[in-house]
């Protein structure tokens, strides 16, 4: 019997939800496990980096990497897995577009380290000790990975073949992707393995979206009694639907929460934040500067809202003066 195709999973700067989503395949994971050999999956299996290093280059059919890239160790692993894999897949928002961790690109490395190791209310660190890449201890040197100045998406560090979007991707998309890989009928390189239409297009509340939104006030979801049937934007609640790719089966919307944009933009959009900015601002029902500014003032954190999952992959990538 010929060897089964080999697959690997790895995580970088992420919350672990992507790993959870693989387990969410439930019984389908048996089907996947039967069709492939999982050769590396630190969260679930006891293979080490040295085992990967010992594999011939290109011997893994596909590796799915989740998480963004923040440290030198994550960079090294990305390069190693790229070399060992025929197909590298960016799995989830963080690997795809930088994700929530890339919101840290609004701050400098110094600001982050100072906040975390000195100023956080729960921290007592009178000597202001910071983690060092190298520290002599008991005759040996202890080492830690370098903390980079910027959070990056996977494709800003190594070449990526495909993307599975979402925070996290749905088990359905994962299963489809695995079956596609096994079929050998590969889509063009660079494809995002989800529908290329906007969220609004498949939204269960589509019918209630007026042609002209005429937003007079932005309301925050946690301060608002949300109508469970009506388009969020028509209720003045920011929904990233117009600037976000579909394929998530509208899970948040079905839970009566607006889309926050985790699937990233469609293929025609380069900068998701700029695109939702454009859509929202043009829908504001005001013509006078004071009135416009007053309504737009209802969006307290435009960068955090519009680029929640995509600051690393935005046109500016980060706050330019940090």
């Amino acid at each position: 019997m010929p060897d089964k195709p080999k697959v690997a999973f790895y995580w970088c700067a992420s919350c672990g939800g992507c790993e959870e989503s693989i387990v969410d395949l439930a019984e389908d994971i048996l089907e996947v496990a039967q069709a492939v050999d999982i050769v590396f999956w630190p969260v679930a299996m006891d293979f080490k980096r040295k085992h990967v290093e010992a594999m011939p280059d290109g011997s893994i059919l596909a590796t799915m990497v989740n998480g963004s890239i923040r440290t030198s160790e994550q960079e090294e692993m990305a390069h190693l897995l790229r070399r060992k894999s025929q197909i590298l897949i960016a799995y989830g928002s963080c690997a795809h577009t930088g994700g929530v961790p890339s919101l840290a690109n609004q701050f400098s490395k110094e600001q982050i380290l100072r906040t975390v190791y000195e100023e956080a209310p729960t921290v007592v660190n009178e000597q202001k000790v910071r983690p060092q890449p190298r520290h002599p201890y008991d005759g040996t040197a202890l080492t830690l990975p370098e903390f980079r100045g910027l959070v990056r998406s996977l494709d800003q560090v190594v070449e990526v073949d495909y993307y599975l979007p979402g925070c996290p991707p749905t088990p359905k998309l994962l299963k489809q992707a695995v079956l596609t890989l096994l079929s050998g009928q590969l889509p063009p390189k660079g494809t995002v393995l989800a529908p290329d239409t906007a969220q609004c297009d498949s939204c269960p509340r589509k019918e209630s979206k007026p042609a002209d939104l005429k937003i007079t006030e932005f309301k925050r979801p946690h301060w608002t009694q949300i109508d469970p049937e009506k388009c969020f934007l028509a209720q003045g609640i920011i929904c990233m639907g117009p600037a976000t790719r579909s394929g998530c089966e509208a899970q948040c919307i079905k839970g009566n929460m607006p889309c926050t944009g985790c699937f990233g933009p469609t293929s025609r959009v380069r900068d998701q934040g700029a695109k939702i900015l454009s859509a929202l601002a043009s829908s504001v029902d005001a013509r006078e500067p004071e009135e416009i500014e007053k309504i737009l003032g209802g969006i307290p954190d435009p960068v955090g809202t519009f680029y929640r999952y995509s600051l690393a992959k935005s046109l500016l990538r980060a706050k330019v003066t940090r």
Partner: protein
Amino acid sequence: MEDRPITDKLVTSADWEPLIVAFFCNWCTYTAADLAGVSRMGYDHNVRVIRVMCSGRVDPQFVLDAFAHGADGVLIGGCHPGDCHYVEGNYKTLRRYYLLKRVLRDLGIEEGRLRLEWIAASEGEKVAKTINEMVEQVRALGPLRLTRRFKEWDAELASIEAQARSEEVATHA
């Protein structure tokens, strides 16, 4: 919109000159710029004019992309309120402008680097005046140099790439 650094030579030279990308509406401001030209009104040469059918066509992505490719300032010129050839286009621009300014501020780009001005077809002089003012303002702010900054940000990746390549050579040798 792929990465295509076009202006590095200009922004990294010692004798830096501000580079302004201007999006002018076909019906008003672009016609006014033409008028300024035929009337032989001189204005600073630091501006690169891009004609669009309406200021409402200026996607905020265009503005960010201009900065990302080396512009030090972006100027948008449209018809006066009430005069839009497409009725509502300039109002949409106005609203996007206010929100975009906030996003730019939060991402570290100074307010003076983006300007919106209403300039009617007959106002050739206003084109010259606006451009000259903006060039001075951006000159005072200094270079933005995003193309160079991006390269500096990525320099920290270069070391690990070199290491990975040498390992690759070692394994294939």
